[in-house]
């Protein structure tokens, strides 16, 4: 499933970043620590529904847009 399909408070692990033709975003996600194997939790969506806020590791809060979250494949934990 995709990261965007998670519900609030659900935890998951990244299994794949779909890099094809989104190379720039993929690099940015990598730099920010969103790589295969990382566990994350969907914290909330912004008041207007986008972007999403996820927590990775223990404390790091990241915000990313739906279109960026769509290239992240996860499995629910």
């Amino acid at each position: 499933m995709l990261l965007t399909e998670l519900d609030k408070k659900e935890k998951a692990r990244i299994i794949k970043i779909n890099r094809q033709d989104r190379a720039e975003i993929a690099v940015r996600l990598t730099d920010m620590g969103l790589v295969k194997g990382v566990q994350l939790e969907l914290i909330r969506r912004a008041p207007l529904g986008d972007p999403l806020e996820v927590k990775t590791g223990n404390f790091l809060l990241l915000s990313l847009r739906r279109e960026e979250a769509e290239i992240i494949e996860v499995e629910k934990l």
Partner: protein
Amino acid sequence: MKKPENKEILVALAGNPNSGKTSLFNSIVGTHLKVGNYPGVTIEKTEGALKYGGYKITFVDLPGTYSLSPYSPEEVITRNFIVEEKPDVVLNVVDGTNLERNLYLTTQIMELGANMLIALNMYDEVLQQGTKIDFKQLQKMLGCHIVPTIATRKDGLDKLLEHIVKIYERKIVIAKNKLGYDPQEKDPAVLAESRYAFINGAVKETVEYLDKPLKTLTDWIDAIFINRLLGIPIFLFIMWAIFQLTFKLGEYPMGWVESAIVFLSEFVSGVLPEGWFSSLLVDGIIAGVGGVISFLPSILLLFLGISFLEATGYMARAAFVVDKLMHKIGLHGKSFIPMLTGFGCSVPAFMACRTLKNPADRITTMLIIPFMSCGAKLPVHLLLIGAFFPERLSGNMLFGVYMFGILVALLSAFLLKKFLFKGESEPFVMELPPYRAPTIGYLLIQMWIKAQLYLKKAGTIILLVSIIMWGLTSFPSLPEDYPGEMSQIEYSLAGRAGKFIEPVIKPLGFDWKIGIALVSGVAAKEVVVSTLGTIYALDDADIEDEEATALKDRISSDPVFTLPTVLALLVFILLYVPCLAATAVFHKEAGSWRYTALYFGYSCGVAWLAAFVVQRISSLFF
């Protein structure tokens, strides 16, 4: 004579955005550079030096980067500095609460073979979170020394300096073969994965987190502040509160300064014999510069509000909350941070646009920043609102003026992106840093710096323009036997120039006096106040009124200021081109005369149009 042991050590500070490099730099070198709790505060590398143990140690604060891939300007600056300048020590500042992500940059610095020392910053927060780090083992695995620091409390600085000297003297040897992977790997995805695998291995062995992480204060605050329902109302409330405070709290000290100025001008005109010199002092300098100085308290309060937002970590939240809206108009949530900074001053706001990677986004954001009313425009708003609106409405009026600016800015961005600067907007992967309490000392020092700058401006450019405006409004003198009705100012050079441009601004309800003030305001916005001060002081002198009065009372008795005209003037001042200094910075940042011409023409054109519409519509009601 240079002693042989007087050697220089060059230290580069590298680290992730918001890891506290600048805080550490300030603490070590004793500077007061701007810091903030959001990624991307430092946009230019800065140098500072100190003497320690017989050495001159020069520190270079580099902009924060998440990696060294040649992907953004900051990353290139940092990489080139390490490769080309070959600093003696690369001080890698690591946010201890985010070890895994921060060590990603660390592995890349290791790949360059630099002499690295790690400052594990925010160590107080690490302890609070109950995290245990086995420093010895982690040092062994990374091949370099690690010093825990708390930059804001100046903890661990001595140890850092000691280590820097030891590394320089080769008393500490950096092991450079610790990477368990091939850094020459061609596939960037594979390389990234092996870096993280190396980091995870090291962290797993040396760092112990609490089993169940505690719910942090940040979690609690965010649950309310960026809540789906309350997020936007709270954002609006915060902005409203800042402007209310600016007006309400600023009013008291402003009143004192105003009375002091009235007293001073009465005193001077009492002691000095009547003549041009007394007029220069009273009508030119005291009325001009004094009027500007009386707004200092309000300006400091506004800056305090903005600094507070920047220091606590709310800025990134504001970007998060409005990103969808910004996305709709074709911009980036991050564009919102320079826009809010623009409430203080356009100069840092233009520079902050460098954090926007996409050139189309960047130039669009720069073009709409003039619509974010800056601190220098504040005195003019305060003067007009104070003179023409009842006190209970004043804070709300001010808030309304600023919100109107944001609306025009957003609408402009939409049109600019749609017709002039097309292009995809950049990705929005952004860190939301934990909330942090600002250090009071830092806020006070920033206020003090702002106050000095403001007074310096009042004493130099505003003084100069006031004297020039006094000259232009006083000469040539009206002949005593001049036939017909004519005031001194109308007869003067400035008066004639004002009459000349009057047709352009007549449709907005402005007369030649306002015209002079607006033109002089291109130099600096406070000058609008000082010029009005001089014009009305001279006018008053003309009527031979004995009592000196505050400018507020002088303008409110001039019939040209009808309510529609006042509203149109507020809108015009809000939107038209910022001061010369800001324009110069815009030109430097945009790098082309075409853009600078567009910026000037666009802001003035929009100001005229919006003022015209406001004046016409409000004429229907009042």
